């Protein structure tokens, strides 16, 4: 009924957060193979990523160890080129424990101490010896992966339970998107993360910690794929108001809006779809036809107008820009996003050999995208899938490829009306209200959080766990995180196949 646990590569953001926790202000963005938590739990590491890891760890260690004040602050003693140098051993034991999120074995400590001392001799520098050992620790699989293998559960021998120390890592990356702190790691070393009461106490502490805010926001960043906004490009001829700063600002706005709903607006996930509380800087204010006077580059809280065209995260520029082409909107992409990501529903691919050619209007007779795509809704083999997607997107056609409001297209009025699974809506805001009450929404939210937490897509045998989570969470986002962290699916796993094979 459960699935095996195992190795989970740190995602790009987890790697950055872990480096920051180890070295303070050191910033290393964009390093790693996978951004998605699910992909990192299943995917491999290619040579190009191995090269990135090596470059990043050397660049970082060089900077830290070239600075006398920084290296002394990090190491806390002065290494010497003597046999069994106590400073080398002490530093590597302590730093290694933080890097591996567990105590080093005697063999590991010996390995890294030897590496430091041999390197110190080769390079004629004790400090550089430690620098080389640090570069190696940061490339070890014990650092780059979360090692969550479990031990046989004495109560249910056919499953494994994560050890307390493994639970510390699993909890920290789930709830904080970063490594465990000293409190959590020492609680784990006291074996307190397998018992319900002490586990729940830690989970609550973590969710109340500022890192808990960042952690839940990181989940939404993963689910909504918002890091794509950092590299988003639009056609400058057709979307001239798109600037290199707009994508990152839209990403930040979306995440701040989510954070506001989760932590400052009652934490009901349904409110994500009709909230009017958001954040804008001067550029975003112009995008949303709000008054930019007095605004700078920094995001500032704002309440969207009660009679305005938009409310909720769906109609913010971030999702509208992501689910569009470089210069045109795509009702299909936008509808597919709602089906796949918000409602956890799947749409099959287009059948092979179908000519997707649409009627070409004469330049003098330009039409709306909805009219152009009407064949999707009339031809049965198109409609069987597009009927599920395009109407949702039509409601959002009043937002251009970066989410700017446009009342007309090609001089024609835009028809935004439609229905979602039998409930009619008139426009984007009404769509948000229908979506917030959609019966699949809450189930899908817990489902995707569970996938994020455990690193796999649930199987049939886990449905009972999910129902319990959904039931116990109500509409609360934070509660859903807490219930998942306490659930059987998070703390136990099936034994992996093939252990010990050659």
């Amino acid at each position, binding site marked *: 009924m459960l699935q095996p646990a195992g190795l989970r590569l740190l995602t790009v953001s987890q790697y950055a957060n872990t480096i920051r926790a180890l070295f303070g202000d050191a910033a290393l963005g964009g390093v790693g193979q996978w951004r998605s938590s*699910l992909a990192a739990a299943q995917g491999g590491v290619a040579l190009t990523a191995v090269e990135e890891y090596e470059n990043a760890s050397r660049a970082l260690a060089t900077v830290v160890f070239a600075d006398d004040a920084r290296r002394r602050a990090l190491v806390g003693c002065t290494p010497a080129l003597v046999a069994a140098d106590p400073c080398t051993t002490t530093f590597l034991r302590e730093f290694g424990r933080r890097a591996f999120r567990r105590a080093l074995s005697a063999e590991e400590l010996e390995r890294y101490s030897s590496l430091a001392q*041999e*390197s110190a001799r*080769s390079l004629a520098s004790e400090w550089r010896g430690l620098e080389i050992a640090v570069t190696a620790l940061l490339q070890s699989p014990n650092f780059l992966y979360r090692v969550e293998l479990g031990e046989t559960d004495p109560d249910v021998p056919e499953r494994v339970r994560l050890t307390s120390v493994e639970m510390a890592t699993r909890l920290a990356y789930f709830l904080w998107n970063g490594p465990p702190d000293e409190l959590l790691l020492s609680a784990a070393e006291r074996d307190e993360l397998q018992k319900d009461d002490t586990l729940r106490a830690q989970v609550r502490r973590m969710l109340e910690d500022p890192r808990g805010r960042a952690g839940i926001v990181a989940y939404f960043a993963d689910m909504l794929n918002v890091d794509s906004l950092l590299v988003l490009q639009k056609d400058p001829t057709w979307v001239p108001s798109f600037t290199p700063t707009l994508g990152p600002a839209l990403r930040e706005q979306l995440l701040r809006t989510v954070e506001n709903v989760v932590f400052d607006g009652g934490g009901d996930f349904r409110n994500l779809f009709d909230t009017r509380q958001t954040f804008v800087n001067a550029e975003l204010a112009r995008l949303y036809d709000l008054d930019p006077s007095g605004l700078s580059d920094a995001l500032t809280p704002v309440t969207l107008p009660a009679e305005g065209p938009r409310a909720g995260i769906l109609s913010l520029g971030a999702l509208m820009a992501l689910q569009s082409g470089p210069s045109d909107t795509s009702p299909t992409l936008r509808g*597919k996003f709602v089906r796949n990501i918000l409602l956890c529903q799947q749409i099959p*691919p287009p059948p092979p050999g179908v000519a997707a*050619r649409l009627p*070409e209007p004469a330049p003098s007779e330009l039409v709306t995208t909805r009219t152009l795509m009407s064949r999707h809704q009339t031809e049965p083999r198109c409609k069987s899938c597009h009927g599920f997607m395009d109407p949702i997107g039509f409601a959002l056609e009043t937002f251009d490829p970066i989410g700017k409001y446009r009342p007309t297209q090609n001089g024609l009025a835009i028809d935004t009306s439609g229905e979602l699974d039998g409930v009619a809506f008139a426009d984007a805001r009404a769509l948000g209200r229908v979506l917030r009450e959609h019966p699949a929404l809450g189930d899908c939210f817990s489902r995707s959080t569970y996938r994020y937490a455990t690193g796999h897509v649930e199987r049939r045998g886990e449905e009972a766990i999910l129902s319990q989570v959904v039931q116990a969470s109500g509409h609360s986002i934070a509660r859903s995180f807490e219930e998942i962290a306490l659930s059987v699916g998070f703390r136990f796993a099936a034994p992996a196949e093939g252990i010990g094979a050659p």
Partner: protein
Amino acid sequence: MTPFRLSRRALLRGTVRSSLGVALGLPLLDAMLNSHGTALAAGDPLPLRFGVFFWGNGSDPARWAPAATGADWQPSEMLQGIAAVKDYVNIVSGTRLAVRGAHNPHVEGAVAILAGGNPVLHPSFSGQSNDWDYLTVPGPSVDQIAADHLAGPTRFRSIVASATPVHTGAAGTSSAPGTAISYTSHSAPFVFNSPKTTPSELFGYLFGTPVGTPPSGPDPEMLVRADALGAVLADANVLRRRLGTNDRQRLEQHMDSVRELQARILAMPPPVVGACAQPTMPTDPASLRLKVKLFADLIAMGFACDLTRVFSLQFSSPASHVAYPDLFPSYVYNGTATSFHEYEHNAGIDETVRTTLKYFVEIFGSVLESFRALPERGGNLLDRSCILGTSELSFGPSHGFDDFPILLAGKAGGALKYPGVHVTAPGENAARVPFTALKAIGAPLASWGRDQLLTSAPVAELLT
């Protein structure tokens, strides 16, 4: 059944582990330090090379095949762009790429022609079966199989570059095979090589350590880097014993790459022979045409210097979700600019689309010219290269797979016909052409591909 073969990676694993495992920090690897040796010294055989050039969204099958077969073919409308190098180009027309129609056609086509199989879905992604992000290839792509066979002691096992960004949108910055063929340049499912995306980046990678640097004995900085990786490998060796089969394979693939990097760090710079010379740092141009030219020039020099023997160069991703401003400021349809992909779906094959499809082949022609421009022992680099040029489907508007566009360029050391011939193979499995390419470089394979794409029959008319 996949024939057993001992990969270069496996060999590398054996040799490096035995030399390094116990030797942290000791004088390292006499064999490694000489590993580059004198492969290109006068009189020794020259290496063979392999490349893949890929463009997205096919061609126009009605205007693809030349009228005549054999060596007397003249470029068709679609093939005008290779007229200048036609002696080096072989054409197999009329083949069909058999895909299953279970996933996105662009993903299926790319995986089929480059990896000879159907996209696979990781078992853990059962709920996401239609999402590009969770599809992968069933095995290594053709360039990586070639690298197993050809890379030998070269510093870079293969070069992976892309002229256009992987497209954003539904799949975001995903690394799925629908967005980058680099995904298919790997050793196993869910391991993909990120492409170098600018000429300056590729320059730094290939030529950051200038060619021609005289060996000055072992560099202690390099030795400690290699030692650090030795500690990483030792950690992995302990960890692997506690893992299940799936994770053990993931970790071993990861460590194969660590060993590969370690060997590169210890390798000496290759000797400068023939046309090999340190290139100048390029300035990244706005034009895609110029960008590909710079990529090709750098890769050709990498071949001449024997830094690498294999490349995978993506002009555009499967589906061509980009515009081509070299040709048109925008692709306008119904009053709005769109990507080439959307434009072709909406408009069908019109003059704008035909111009663009011809441009794809012209870019391929310019890549071939870069290789022809570098002399090597009385000939040029194309004489000892085998370069596959292809796309993921034959006809964009309907996602068609009949009359598949595929070209095989270079003499491959005399294994391929010269001057190049045009062969018709109506309805034949298109995977026979990549298999022919692998045979031409002497890869010891009895067959290639899986399932409905499996083939053991190279296109005999192309081989000498």
